[in-house]
């Protein structure tokens, strides 16, 4: 019994130490963003701001195009997520509930391309976007990565388990195929729609490489691009940068807190793109 107590104490101490190592870097950045510029590097450094201020947030929101970057990112993330969910759910439905020639071949090709990272084909993708006149357009960021093998895979996996009898009954009642999808399948797919939507949103919000390839026009950039440019300057204005970084982090933390259970079940369900 005593031994168990010692064991439990060690267990907790270990967890707390590791949790601090995980969280303190994030906290340090967030807290520092509330310090006045004069205090940021003033010795002795203090963990909490001596004087709390929102000055860095005000100045970074006023400086340059930050509000534009923010709204670009919101637009890209929201629209992409909607398209990704619809396109993948429809494909997953076709693969799960219809029998037709080439079904297995299509599914196999999709799964096989899971292994091809964007980084490997970014050059021909760039040229393809150039051919289609999609460079420097937010649609060039939104459309190309909307069809994801993981999304199709998760949707198919979920829909296979829905009973066929529902679809049969609707057909006997004379329902059209598309209305079966929108009226019956879609409402029943809420958990998998939520999972795909959350991971899509997170990925789009955080993505840097795709916007980097597509966008050169300053006014079309996303937050991650703006942050990378900011940190690439010779003289970094750390106060503003930390405030912008915090603003970029807040949405993903909110989504995580609101939909926590979908995160963990989604990751466990398959190798979801992070």
């Amino acid at each position, binding site marked *: 019994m005593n031994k168990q107590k010692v064991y439990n104490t060690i267990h907790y101490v270990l967890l707390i130490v590791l949790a601090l190592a995980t969280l303190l870097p994030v906290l340090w950045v967030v807290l520092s963003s509330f310090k006045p510029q004069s205090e940021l590097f003033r010795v002795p450094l203090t963990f909490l701001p001596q004087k709390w201020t929102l000055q860095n947030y005000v100045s970074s929101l006023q400086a340059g195009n930050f509000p534009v970057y923010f709204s670009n990112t919101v637009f890209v993330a929201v629209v992409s997520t909607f398209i990704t969910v619809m396109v993948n759910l429809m494909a997953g439905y076709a693969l799960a509930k219809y029998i037709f020639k080439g079904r297995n071949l299509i599914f196999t090709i999709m799964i096989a391309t899971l292994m091809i990272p964007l*980084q490997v084909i970014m050059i021909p993708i760039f040229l393809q976007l150039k051919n289609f006149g999609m460079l420097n357009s937010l649609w060039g960021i939104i*459309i190309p990565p909307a069809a994801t093998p993981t999304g199709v895979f998760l949707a198919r996996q979920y829909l296979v388990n829905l009973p066929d009898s529902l679809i049969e009954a609707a057909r006997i009642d004379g329902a059209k195929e598309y209305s079966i999808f929108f009226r019956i399948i879609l409402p029943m797919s809420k958990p998998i729609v939520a999972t795909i939507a959350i991971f899509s949103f997170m990925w789009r919000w955080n993505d840097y490489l795709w916007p980097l390839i597509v966008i050169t026009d300053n006014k079309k950039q996303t937050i991650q691009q703006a942050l990378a440019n900011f940190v690439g300057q010779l003289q970094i204005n750390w106060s503003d940068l930390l405030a912008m970084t915090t603003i970029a982090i807040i949405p993903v933390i909110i989504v995580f807190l609101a939909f926590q259970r979908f995160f963990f079940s989604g990751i466990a369900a398959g190798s979801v793109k992070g």
Partner: protein
Amino acid sequence: MKQHTKGNFHQTAAPLLFLLPNILIFGLFIIVPAIQGLRMSFTEWGVFTTPRFIGFANFVELAQDTVFWKTFSNTIVYSLFTVSLIMVYALALALLLYKNTIKGEKIFRSLFYIPSLLSMITVGIAWRFILGDEMGIINYLLRQSGGSGIPWLTDGNLAMVSIIGVSIWAQAGYYMIILIAGLQAIPLELYEAATIDGASTTKTFTAITLPLLRSTLLVVMVLSTIASFKAYELISVMTKGGPGYATKLIVQQVYQVAFLEDRMGYASAMSIVLMLIISIFTLVQFKFTGKEQDYE
């Protein structure tokens, strides 16, 4: 499953229409570029010049390109250390948190997952702020306690160590979640039987936990290996590949040669080599750990 195709025209056309948007996007932006990339690697190709077929010349040049081989070996070193340390650390976290027996377990899981939510750009910014030579908090604390500052990002070897450390910090929580799911799938009866037989904790771990966790560990290994070969953002923010070429990885070099030096054919050849390495590593991992993981 019942045969649905025998019905009317609508039921035959419907699946194809449902698949159409996906196949269009997928074909135009993944399949076609993948084939195009292979073709490009045999050409001299700039954005504003006419492509010219040059056979294997790109690959011959690549074989003698010392900068490329430096980024190649950097990528291998980065990948080996990041993947193996992530596996050890994520497994340790998962073992501390999978049993559902101690209070606050769920909160701890969420806390450890938080870095995985952040973009690699923001992770890089945070750690550059923390590891800064003069003004970073770590060096400040070291100096306060009588030591001297450490050039975390400005010394070649240390910069690679820092990048690897930050990569582990940023990703371990994600793989921890996968491993927790794997650990929870092991039947409890096996552990009970082992306890009755008087097996030690170590023995239980090596005889039950590790073998039954093998397919999950394989998934973690493959995913983290692919992630490490794709690494780009973190380095571009923290070191820009420097000092010198000390932390430059293949993807950085591909980007520079393709988009800054406008040698897209040559950069495509590099991409092909990168794809080959990824495929070889993945295959070897499947071979060494036994049967293939099916997608269930």
